[in-house]
């Protein structure tokens, strides 16, 4: 087992027997399932602004979440101390979801086997704080010396290291250590009276070394500046229904919103999703094959094992347009008589697990990206997005472009600003008419919110064409 958790357990005399005793409290007769989730998380962030590294922040958060499930009912409590008496109290609160009918006995569980997808160490301690400060200074200098018209540069560097250990009433136990780093650049450039912003960033489950490699970080710095310059030339866009070509990579956030959330097990078990009961049906054009893959090495959205001790998988959601299955956690899988797909995730010990996405992307198609653009007489090329949102019940989704252009006579021409796309997931995916051969995953900065819980995720897609979608703009 991993050091941090081991220390916590031994410091508080939480032996295997004590853990089994806790399970007897949280999982008495009448409770179907219970798990106890230990977590110790250290995170930090550093930022430079106005050319000064103004602040550094360090956060330590640790605790234990205990959950008791009977049928589709869940009791939950947590403690941010590790005393056995506090944990027993949390277990009693958790089991109060069902009447108490006497205790069951538990034996120590066995460790679940899984493949490690990332290094175990902490990115925070492997490098002196001073080096982080110097890196930010150098990046700031690099941007300012190359671009005299830059008005503001804000660079953030953040890392976290989460150690988790989960033990459950099915006799399973697992622990994992998860590094995560992230680097973001935002610049504001002024031209005449106009100010525009550009931003870029990257990261994943690795150490700072990769970010401190200039080939990695300067690419994002240049990208942020380029985007701000494009936006300075952008013209107002026209509102209406039009053909849109989405660029590869981050625009895959469309899939995340338009279809990903709607295929999470909880919504489908409760029949509140626009995709409820649609397995086996055609829900997208035959060019669309979409997967959720938590097993990619070092990716921001990846997990070696999920927060419920299920190893992650590559789950095919849609194959050639046909809906194949949902993303499941243990609770929803059991209620729908299927297996967990390793998508049971929680923001922390203080949150309940739910079915959540990992890295969700569309598989490549046959077309060259240039062929796709030249097939459009009149449309929009959306190269990048800032974010999106979905109503899973009616399928309506929205997202906002941070970089977009007009397509005129098969050529990408003027940049346009302030553009929002709105569509209906099931509807829009049927209008995908060309899929490129240039699958790209995002650079590792995505965070997904659901029910107030944030988790890191990845998205991706090749260049693709949607025949018709509504875009917002100020011109009619």
């Amino acid at each position, binding site marked *: 087992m991993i050091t941090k958790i081991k220390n916590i357990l031994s410091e508080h005399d939480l032996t295997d027997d004590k853990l089994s005793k806790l399970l007897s409290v949280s999982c008495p007769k009448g409770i179907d399932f219970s798990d106890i989730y230990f977590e110790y998380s250290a995170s930090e962030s550093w930022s430079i602004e106005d050319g000064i590294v103004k602040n550094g922040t360090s956060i330590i958060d640790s605790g234990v979440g205990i959950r008791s499930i009977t049928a589709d009912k869940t009791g939950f409590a947590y403690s941010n101390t590790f005393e056995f008496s506090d944990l027993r109290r949390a277990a009693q609160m958790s089991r109060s979801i069902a009447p108490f009918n006497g205790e069951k006995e538990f034996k120590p569980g066995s460790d679940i086997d899984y493949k490690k997808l990332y290094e175990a160490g902490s990115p925070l301690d492997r490098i002196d704080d001073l080096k982080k400060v110097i890196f930010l200074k150098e990046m700031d200098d690099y941007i300012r010396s190359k671009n005299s018209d830059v008005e503001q540069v804000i660079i953030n560097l953040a890392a976290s290291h989460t150690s988790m250990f989960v033990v459950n009433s099915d006799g399973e136990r697992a622990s994992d250590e998860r590094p995560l780093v992230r680097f973001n650049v935002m610049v504001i450039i002024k031209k005449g009276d106009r100010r525009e912003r550009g931003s870029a960033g990257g990261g994943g489950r690795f150490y700072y070394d990769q970010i401190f490699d200039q080939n990695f970080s300067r690419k994002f710095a240049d990208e942020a500046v380029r985007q701000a310059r494009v936006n300075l030339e952008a013209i107002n866009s026209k509102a209406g229904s039009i053909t849109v070509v989405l660029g590869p990579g981050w625009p895959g956030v469309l899939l995340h919103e338009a279809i990903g959330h709607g295929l999470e097990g909880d919504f489908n078990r409760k029949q509140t999703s626009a995709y409820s009961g649609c397995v086996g049906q055609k829900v997208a054009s035959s060019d669309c094959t979409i997967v959720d893959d938590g097993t990619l090495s070092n990716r921001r959205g990846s997990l070696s094992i999920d927060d419920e001790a299920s190893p992650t998988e590559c789950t095919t959601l849609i194959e050639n347009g046909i809906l194949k299955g949902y993303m499941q956690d243990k609770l929803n899988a059991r209620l729908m008589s299927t297996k967990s797909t390793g998508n049971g995730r929680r923001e922390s010990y203080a949150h309940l697990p739910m079915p959540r996405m990992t890295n969700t992307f569309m598989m490549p198609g046959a077309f060259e990206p240039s062929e796709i653009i030249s097939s459009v007489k009149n449309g929009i090329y959306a190269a990048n997005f800032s974010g999106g949102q979905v109503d899973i019940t009616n399928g309506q989704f929205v997202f906002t472009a941070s970089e977009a252009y007009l397509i005129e006579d098969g050529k990408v021409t003027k940049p346009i600003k302030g553009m929002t796309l709105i569509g209906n997931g099931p509807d829009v995916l049927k209008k995908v008419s060309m899929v490129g051969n240039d699958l790209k995953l995002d650079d590792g900065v995505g965070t997904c919110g659901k029910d107030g819980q944030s988790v890191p995720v990845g998205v991706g897609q090749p260049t693709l064409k949607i025949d018709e979608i509504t875009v917002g703009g*100020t011109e009619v």
Partner: protein
Amino acid sequence: MSESGNRVLEHKENILKTTSSMNKNTQAQFNLSISNGVTINYRSNQLENIEHHNDTSLTVTVYNDFKKGSASTNNLSFDSIKQTLDKATNIAINTQKDNCQGLPRESFTTCESQDIGIYYPKQFEIDEATELTKICESAGFEYDKRISNSEGSSYSQSNSECLILNSQGMYGHFKSTDYSLSCVMLAGDNQAMERDYWYSSTRKHENLESPQEIGKKASSRAISRLNAKTISSRVCPIIFPAEVATSFFNNFLSAINGHAIYKKSSFLLDKLGSEIFPEFITIREDPSIVEGMGTRPFDSDGVLTERKNIINKGILETYLLDTYSARKLNLNCTGNGVLTNILVESSEEQTDNLINLVDEGVIITEMMGSGANLLTGDYSRGAFGYYFKDGQIKYPVTGITVASNLTQMFKNILHVGKDYDIRGNIRTGSILIDKVTIGGT
């Protein structure tokens, strides 16, 4: 659900003890928040979830020769507090000098504890809470045959305490309670399903809206969304109902935040003294409203919050400044390390039926996506709403976008209704805005 005041005093002692070994040139600030509560969810005629919450967070901010470092922990043992202080001190060795950093020098709180009318604790009773949510969901189901499903009714209550201390002798403490009851209902079938919700949020349990009303409103809102159409693109007046108008005014408040201003990342840069809204609009901040959702005696640095006009007869009178941004801009701090209660007022006679004021337009009941660019004021968001004409709602509209620029939208406000929403810290009525671009088919 009863965290005693003595616990906080004990933490205060521990915190002060850690500062005894601190270097003389070092300043430190401690922000402690402790909250505990329960949330239950009742769905499909049974209690589905009980979640007990119990959160602690201590943040230590250290200033050493104008260099800043901060660190947080959720462990309040003496050793842990000491380690957190040391961590913040170490960070401040490596960060860089910024002359605007430091503790507030004036008008900070020194109150031991005060009753500001936002703390009304109540013992959690599972049976009572279950009954409330049961009535709420049942009222939702019984409202109409077209109600087909539910995401349930939720009740939550929490007690919070906030303590601030600094090495200059500042000390502030207050307690608050929050209660909420909500319901999410679904209408229609698999071919066309719609979901909507309603909620009540208060400082006092007894002030929650009746569960029947909440359930019925959730259902009536879900049903009214069925059979929505899209409309053609056009420029027309729109109405933001009070609950949507709050987020619209929030864009304004974010754009005049001192941090956005000194970073030159706001479209309202250099606009102090300029006319931002029509003359009939005044926007005030009042931090001391009894039972107010934004009521607070001091901000995140311990600076006393103050009553003031932000917009006076359309003119921008102040930015929202905390200690740091005020020093950056060479202005006086306004105690806006937090935003308290904001009141949007109209000097004109207010009505609650805005659709009678123009021939036709769209009521926007839901906004989606994050399309407000506060650097440029460009505004483009997805929306759901209702088309109205000749004083009558005609049909629901979906798949539309709303676009304009915030500068113009603020100036084009024609009316502020009298149907104030007081469930959050921004209190406004519905607003009618002229000349907004609707994107549709």
